[in-house]
């Protein structure tokens, strides 16, 4: 008999893993006990509480084996495209071609957390003049320098323009140290001027036709460069097929979010949901496997919802979470404080929305890139968050600041003001460093206070 849904430690997972194996668990090639990643240096795992389902095991193993997959791709002679900053757009082009793998070097963001700073990546960035006044994505500089976390890509792309200064500056530093970058422009999304023709973006915002045309031009250039790098021509039908597959991932994730966030008792913890959402951006360097991982998770969640079970109490405060956290432990912490995540804006809502299929593929990708919540005004992002919170029945919001991030200084204030003004719900702004241990007590106090306020409001 399967145990009830629960969150368990790494040690408990070893026992659970042995039991599952004894029951005949079949795993993909990257499977194995989770604790083996600890031996690889992923020390943070010992502080986390994981979902106890085989689907979650597969998710974590998939996430934590990405490096191996990338190095294997290199050995197999596949073309590797490093796509920086756009979060979800350029990989769709790369995956349109066979034997091509795309990944986000930005993912090094989490290395200092996962390895509890033992990787020295932040120290390397420091030595390159990129100190803690920058976002933790600076770890990427160290990762390029050591070459230990991913192989040097055959092509490196980066979107700039309406992007954070942190990333733009760090990528420029990278380029100056000898990693050539294909820069492409994403302009700030703006309302149409009087008389300008408008186009509707995924998510519903309207933008001027000229902005879409400009970004489509950028996509054409990227498609050409990717084709050149792979020695193949990126044809329209390849792209259309790739968009279709991307929509498959997005569709699955949409269903997973719907089921998991709307359920009375959270069927899956916030941390697994965060990891699952991230898959929509980069597919962990294997898109087909991403689909399989998400299908497993969705099936598990559906089973639990049908059985009326979950990993948290139904009484948990329904909290909407804004921005990803540099330390995954923060997601566990909210749950320990009596909250649960009921909706999120992890800064890549555009990577979750369905890509239009009734327009030429490159234009569809351009529309998607322009729908990025971070390229528009913070006020628009705040409006979308409020609408999402209302639909999710959120009772409070956590705005999680990213240390050093240029957008967090102003954006948090705008989002908090909108939530208080429109929904009259409690909001807390916290800052989550790559390892939260030093600030754990204060974070706990603040998250507990938020949950308390939710409970008081319920009683009123």
């Amino acid at each position, binding site marked *: 008999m399967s145990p009830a849904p629960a969150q368990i430690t790494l040690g408990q997972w070893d026992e659970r893993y042995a039991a599952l194996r004894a029951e005949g668990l079949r795993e993909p090639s990257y499977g194995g006990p989770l604790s083996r990643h600890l031996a690889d240096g992923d020390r943070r795992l010992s502080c986390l509480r994981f979902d106890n389902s085989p689907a979650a095991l597969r998710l974590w193993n998939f996430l934590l084996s990405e490096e191996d997959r990338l190095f294997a791709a290199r050995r197999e002679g596949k073309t590797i495209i490093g796509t920086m900053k756009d979060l979800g757009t350029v990989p769709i082009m790369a995956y349109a071609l066979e034997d091509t793998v795309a990944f986000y070097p930005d993912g090094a963001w989490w290395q200092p957390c996962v390895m509890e700073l033992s990787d020295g990546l932040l120290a390397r960035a420091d030595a390159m003049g990129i100190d803690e*006044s920058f976002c933790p994505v600076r770890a990427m500089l160290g990762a390029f320098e050591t070459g230990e976390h991913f192989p040097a890509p055959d092509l490196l792309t980066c979107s700039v323009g309406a992007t954070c*200064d942190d990333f733009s*500056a760090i990528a420029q*530093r990278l380029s100056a140290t000898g990693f050539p970058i294909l*820069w492409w422009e994403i302009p700030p999304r703006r309302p149409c001027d009087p008389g300008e023709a408008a186009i509707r973006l995924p998510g519903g915002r309207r933008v001027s036709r000229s902005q879409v045309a400009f970004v489509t*031009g950028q996509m054409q250039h990227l498609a050409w460069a990717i084709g050149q790098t792979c020695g193949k021509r990126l044809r329209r039908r390849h792209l259309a097929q790739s968009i279709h597959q991307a929509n498959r991932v997005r569709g699955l994730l949409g269903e997973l979010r719907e089921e998991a966030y709307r359920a009375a008792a959270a069927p899956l913890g916030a941390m697994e949901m965060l990891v699952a959402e991230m898959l929509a951006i980069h597919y962990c360097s294997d898109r087909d496997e991403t689909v399989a991982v998400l299908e497993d998770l969705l099936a598990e969640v559906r089973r639990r919802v049908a059985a009326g079970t979950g990993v948290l109490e139904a009484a948990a405060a329904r909290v909407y979470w804004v921005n990803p956290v540099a330390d995954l432990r923060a997601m566990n912490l909210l749950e320990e404080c009596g909250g649960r995540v009921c909706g999120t804006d992890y800064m890549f809502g555009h990577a979750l929305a369905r890509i239009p299929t009734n327009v030429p593929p490159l234009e569809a990708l351009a529309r998607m890139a322009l729908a990025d919540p971070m390229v528009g005004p913070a006020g628009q992002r705040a409006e979308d968050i409020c609408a999402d919170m209302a639909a999710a029945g959120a009772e409070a919001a956590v705005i999680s600041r990213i240390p050093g991030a*240029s957008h967090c200084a102003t954006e948090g204030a*705008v989002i908090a003001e909108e939530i208080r003004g429109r929904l009259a719900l409690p909001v807390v702004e916290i800052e989550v460093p790559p390892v939260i241990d030093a600030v754990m007590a204060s974070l706990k106090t603040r998250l507990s206070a938020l949950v308390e306020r939710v409970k008081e409001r319920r009683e009123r």
Partner: protein
Amino acid sequence: MKTVAYSCPFVPPEWIAAHGLRPRLLVPASLGTGAESGPTAGLCAFARAAAQAAVEDGAIDAYVATSLCDQRRRATELAARHSKKPVFMLHVPAACRAPGAEAMYIAELQRLGRFLVRLGGKEPSRDELILAMRRYSVARASLAATSATIPARQAAEAYWNLCENGPAGDAPPWLWAVQREGKPKPPGVPILLLGGPLTREGLVVLDCIEQAGGCVVVNATENGPATAAAPLPPVHTKASGAQFLMRTYYRHIPHPFSRPNDWLYEWLAATLTKCHARGILFIRHVWCDLWHAELARLKACSPVPVVDLDLAAGDDTAARVGGRVQALMEMLA
């Protein structure tokens, strides 16, 4: 006549002037105390102070902001959230070699033009625009020649004055102050100033350098005279006025925001050769990632010593600046 303020070097005042409106470079009095209401931590104090001043100053009818950096874009949005003052966001493409980047800058100027017309301005003919550009270009050239002979503070103020009052007439007001005071440039160790923009209070940096025995030969701060537009080239081609602005502003002004930003370094190498500066004082505002990230590269490739000076709201600017300038001068002694 309506006043249209701007604070970014990539906004051409002659474009505003040619539309029959009054351009005004906005230079905040100071970076503020750091105790202002609203968010301050994590924000470039200059971007914040400029956006706040643009919205609050009753003498300003509209503000042209840019997306040169995320800080400007977001600080402007925050300041303008509850204001009815018209604000125009001009996008200056960062990926300067990407296809369509230059065309986009031109298109953005044209979009700005339509905004100015909606404000009450009049669309200029090509000749009117070229005339306005020529007058600004001549004024900048004359100021550049004069700057070589006057103290750095006066040169900076005269440049700001030109950007505020325009190049009007043969004896324009911005030149009067220079001529009236007529102090010669003090001799000293040649220093190049590079980095983020200065406030009026921040001009103390220039005084400190001169008091410590230095001589500012180039002021290439973000709003300094050395980062002004290039001189207007001969206009006998069929290029539009906006194309000339693209060449003289977008292609010319050295700034770290461009991707790649090699031009900043090419410009710097050529300028150092010409001006014989023996040291660089690098100004950066705390939380400005764009300038900050260049410091290590600059130090590695500069043929002369570089000392950096970070500025923040609430600083005792004079005291902090004095120490850093002294450090630079000692390195050069």
